[in-house]
């Protein structure tokens, strides 16, 4: 326990946790991570989490999907196997729109989900052990990088006056 290089501070409400977070930042302590049971509003700014570029990826892949679909349909109808269908032109542009749209959405959606899984390293793993089983229930945990100067005691001091459940 003692040779861990991090310290976890437990809260049972987001308000003291946010307060603590502010306090810890003021004290320039390294915050490795914050684990919460739900997305806490305002935490991103405090942790200066950069806005993820998943949507950008989604846009690019979506565009790719759309272009691919459109190109494919055009190729099929004008080059690969042009068929006379209902007297319509081979390059039946309006007809291509629905599928182009669907493919755009499909590619965008899948790429964004994949992006999220990859960036957050979310993968099915039966050996996974959560840090604490209460985190998904009602516990808010700030994980602080520990070193010689940063000990549990020092942190308790820093966070004095804030309702803490425990420090590990």
């Amino acid at each position, binding site marked *: 326990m003692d040779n861990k290089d991090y310290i976890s501070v437990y809260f049972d409400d987001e308000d003291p946790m946010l307060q603590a977070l502010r306090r810890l930042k003021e004290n320039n302590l390294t915050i490795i991570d914050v684990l919460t049971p739900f997305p806490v509003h*305002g935490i991103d700014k405090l942790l200066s989490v950069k806005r993820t570029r998943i949507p950008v990826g989604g846009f690019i892949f979506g565009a790719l999907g759309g272009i691919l679909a459109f190109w494919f349909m055009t190729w099929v109808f004008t080059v690969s196997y042009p068929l006379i269908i209902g007297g319509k032109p081979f390059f039946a542009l309006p007809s291509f729109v629905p599928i182009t749209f669907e493919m755009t959405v499909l590619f965008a959606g899948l790429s964004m989900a994949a992006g999220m899984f990859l960036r957050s390293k979310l993968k099915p793993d039966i050996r996974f052990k959560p840090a604490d089983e209460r985190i998904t229930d009602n516990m808010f945990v700030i994980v602080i990088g520990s070193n010689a100067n940063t000990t549990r005691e020092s942190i308790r001091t820093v966070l004095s006056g804030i309702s803490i459940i425990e420090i590990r």
Partner: protein
Amino acid sequence: MSIFQSSLRKPLIEGKKSYQEITSQILDPLVNKPIKLWYFAITLSGGAMLFGLLMMGWTIWQGIGTWGENRTVGWAFEISTFVWWIGIGHAGTFISAILLLFRQRWRNSINRSAEAMTLFAVICAALFPFIHLGRPLLTFFIFPYPNTRLLWVNFNSPLVWDVFAIATYFTISLVFWYVGLIPDIATLRDKLRKGLKKTVYNFLSFSWKGSARDWHRHEVTSIMLAAIATPLVLSVHSIVSMDFADSILPGWHTTIFPPYFVAGAIYSGFAMVLTLLIIARKLMNLEDFITVEHVESMNKILIATGSIVALAYITETFMSWYSGIEYEQYMLQNRMTGPYAWAYWIMIICNVGSAQLLWIKKLRRSLLFTFFISIVINIGMWFERFVIIVTSLHRDFLPSSWTMYKPTIVEYGLLIGTLGIFFTAFLLFIRVFPVISISEEKSILKTENALQVAKEIHHG
């Protein structure tokens, strides 16, 4: 921490709960053994499902001739039911996506089950394009796969668009649903003791740990998925409507169909969500999360979409009269007074009449009435599709081909069977996954508790 809300707003979580209470109240029904009513329900729905599967087998073996369809009425019961299911499958994404974008808080406790419902409804719907084929074993023809003859599909056909639209819709809905489920599965995982169940949920939880960065990505991804799902939900039923509107048949070929079908889909979808939730909140003891406020809000959507549908009826009626085209005029006259007039008037009464009753506040806050009206609307919306499909087909351009359509037991069996599949899946779902999004409920808890306090003060 709470977001400022006007005091006019009503709390959406009753009873000033703590986070722990939310977790346990939502998960307890999953961890405990099901109640007798659940067993009764699943036996009933399972039976219906088996009957339906039998009828599907019979259809595939014997041919579409086992149905009442004929030379003139090439589609009838099965496509009505298909469109009906697809429509029902629209509420989930509408709730999750559009209401998320429009910041309707009340969506939180219903989106999970609505999305699940979407998936099951789409599965039920997707069965029909398969079994209604003359040669169902050749379904793969519909996909543009490379083959020796370099035959591709006809990208002009709305049925091909359908395949892409429904496949995309299902995939995106599934992803969206599952992405939302991951933190809750993690909660469930952590709630369970050791055992196979825990291992399975551990596997399904994708190693979710609740880190702030993960939450950020999760939120952004969710909202972006919602953003793309919004036009998607519009497109899917629009494309389904084009199955009809792209034809040249009077009663099918009308430009209002895409938006009108979307409104109708949301209308029927919300009705089905209401039906399910009013049952589920009793079955799963979720009265605190699915409140009368939720029901009222959804009823307002019913009024809105129901009115749009009514407006579309009015528009269609006017246009077929105004157009001066004899086929159009006859089509409408035949709907209203012809041999299927009963179906038309059921549709009008169920779809136009019923939703308008919800203008009365007392009624839209009554659970019993809502339950009743939701079933009425579902019946009405099924008849809407039936009326559109059958009455347009059975008397089209050449009177020599006019004929009548009468469904057979096999077709009823397919409708009953898909209802069985749907309810069986839903009953299993509520036993396996949290019906309400735990993390989202927690994220609005503070606000709701504050409103609860305000309400209590207000009431003295």
